[in-house]
């Protein structure tokens, strides 16, 4: 008994070297991390405290502590508000179209690029294809509002080849807004999205292709039977993970490309919250709306992550 204790003693002594000494030894690490931990508390956790506004009739002069609590009133208002529900519908439609297109079109582009033999041509096309990703949405909106404007080149072309009698008001028609936004989004992100597919294609073992060549497989067969199945895991993960974004349609597209004439189909949750929250000062109600949005988004991410882990073995956590 004594022996075992005496053995432990030196170890314990080492461990009990007091916290102040540890802190002194790691003072530079503290210097390099504590400001950022404080930053996280203020700027990441700070807004979480603001969620409480959703359960109040928030008055900016009284602050969260002083405002009256109203329970779920704001949420009930939300479910009886046609305009808010319209924003939800538009969000789901626009983001679903984005998810589908942003997963399929870049994949097609990657497969096409992969078939190009000339490296110079391939890298040039690739470089051009992700230029729009780096350009701000304001610039993109500027380009497309002009290009598809009534006096823009697209209408000129359509009129000149007598496809239409007079210019189409592309941006004033609420019936086609969803398609226009989808086109702009895919134009902006297709090249960027293809990068990850190209990388996963590049990761396929070249010996498999050689073996297939020896067996007399043509290029189409190789693409169909080797390339596509090999990158399937990547494709599936990207699909599933992007599902979490279904309640998240960008503010940019709707705010910059939409206008009062198209609001019926253009207004999404983000623009709705901005309009009611900041522009009109209905803080509590719009906080409730975005709380619902965040909550559903989180559940979707969680679900898709679980599904992804189950079926593909890959997950975020």
């Amino acid at each position, binding site marked *: 008994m004594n022996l075992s204790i005496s053995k432990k003693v030196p170890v314990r002594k080492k461990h009990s070297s007091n916290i102040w000494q540890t802190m002194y030894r790691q003072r530079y690490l503290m210097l390099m991390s504590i400001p950022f931990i404080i930053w996280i508390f203020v700027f990441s956790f700070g807004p979480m405290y603001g969620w409480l506004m959703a359960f109040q009739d928030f008055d900016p002069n009284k602050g969260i502590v002083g405002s009256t609590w109203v329970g779920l009133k704001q949420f009930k208002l939300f479910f009886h508000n046609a305009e808010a529900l319209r924003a939800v519908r538009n969000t789901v439609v626009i983001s679903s179209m984005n998810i589908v297109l942003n997963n399929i079109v870049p994949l097609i*582009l990657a497969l096409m690029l992969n078939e190009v033999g000339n490296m110079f041509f391939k890298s040039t096309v690739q470089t051009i294809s992700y230029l729009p990703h780096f350009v701000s949405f304001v610039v993109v909106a500027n380009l497309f509002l002009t290009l598809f404007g009534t006096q823009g080149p697209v209408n000129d072309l359509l009129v000149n080849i007598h496809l239409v009698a007079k210019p189409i008001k592309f941006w004033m028609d609420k019936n086609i807004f969803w398609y226009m936004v989808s086109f702009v989004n895919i134009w902006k992100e297709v090249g960027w999205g293809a990068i990850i597919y190209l990388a996963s294609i590049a990761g396929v073992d070249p010996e498999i292709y050689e073996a297939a060549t020896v067996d007399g497989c043509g290029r189409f067969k190789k693409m169909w039977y080797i390339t596509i199945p090999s990158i399937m895991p990547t494709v599936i993960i990207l699909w599933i993970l992007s599902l979490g974004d279904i309640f998240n349609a960008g503010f940019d597209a709707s705010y910059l490309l939409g206008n009062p004439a198209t609001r019926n189909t253009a207004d999404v949750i983000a623009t709705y919250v901005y309009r009611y929250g900041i522009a009109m000062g209905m803080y509590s109600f719009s906080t409730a709306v975005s709380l619902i949005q965040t909550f559903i988004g989180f559940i979707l991410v969680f679900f898709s992550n679980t599904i992804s882990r189950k079926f593909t073995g890959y997950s975020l956590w």
Partner: protein
Amino acid sequence: MKKTLGEKIFDVINGLLLVLMSVTMLYPFIYILAISLNEAADSNRGGIYFLPRKFTFDSYRIIFENKNLLGAAGISVSRTVIGTILTVLCSAMFAYVFTKPKYFIYKPMKVIFFIAMFLGGGSLIPTYMLYRTLGLMNKFAVYIIPGMVNLWFVILFRTYFTQLPAGLEEAAVIDGANELVIFFKLMLPLSTPMLATITLFSAVAQWNSWQDTLFFTTSESLKSLQYVMMEIMQKASASSMISMAAMKLGRVGRVQTVDPMSVRMAITIVTTIPIVLVYPFLQKYFIKGMLIGSMKG
């Protein structure tokens, strides 16, 4: 290897489609460039598609002579420079601490980090209220401080640091260097590819940002180029300042060489050019960086 006829046809069609796509990507910019370099009165007659017909630099002259626009350009440049340097340095420094599991608050720090990553920030109105409380409204700092650390960049940097050979750092420790010195003298210089990637991402985000101006400022002097461009695009009233400058210039030349449209196009080109100049040279870096990030994800 010989190609079959079918494969040759496929190659041709594939190539043509890719060329068509590249044209679709580039044409909007070409069109805008042509309009911005053409006399406004002439542009209104239509028919400008690829090249300017009556060449003029007047729209660009307006930008560089207009005080408001120059001020906006100043805001854009300063927020990009200051914001990028700060974000890159802070994210890298924080990431370096995350490579030290022996740090006595390593575990709680990690938990806090992941909670922030998945739940933090986000919603507009609470953020708005927070900035109001902190007094960030209508301050230049609102462009810099909230984005000081980017949690995603922290992950990218950490992944990169852990892949560096450990021996170098051990040698530095034996030489008596403290963590701060090791970070600045050893880790940062060894991480050039990652630094380039993150700098590009961060600079592009700062340069392109306009929502924070819309949400958190009302002051005329804090407007960035992107925001001014958005205003000209959205609101007719905002273009009056351009119209006035345009009329002044137009009178001198006795032809209407500039109108809000041509100035809008010129601003679009001016805000796009820095990006077009920078990103092709950094692409081998950012592709790598993006892949490290996605593998982690």
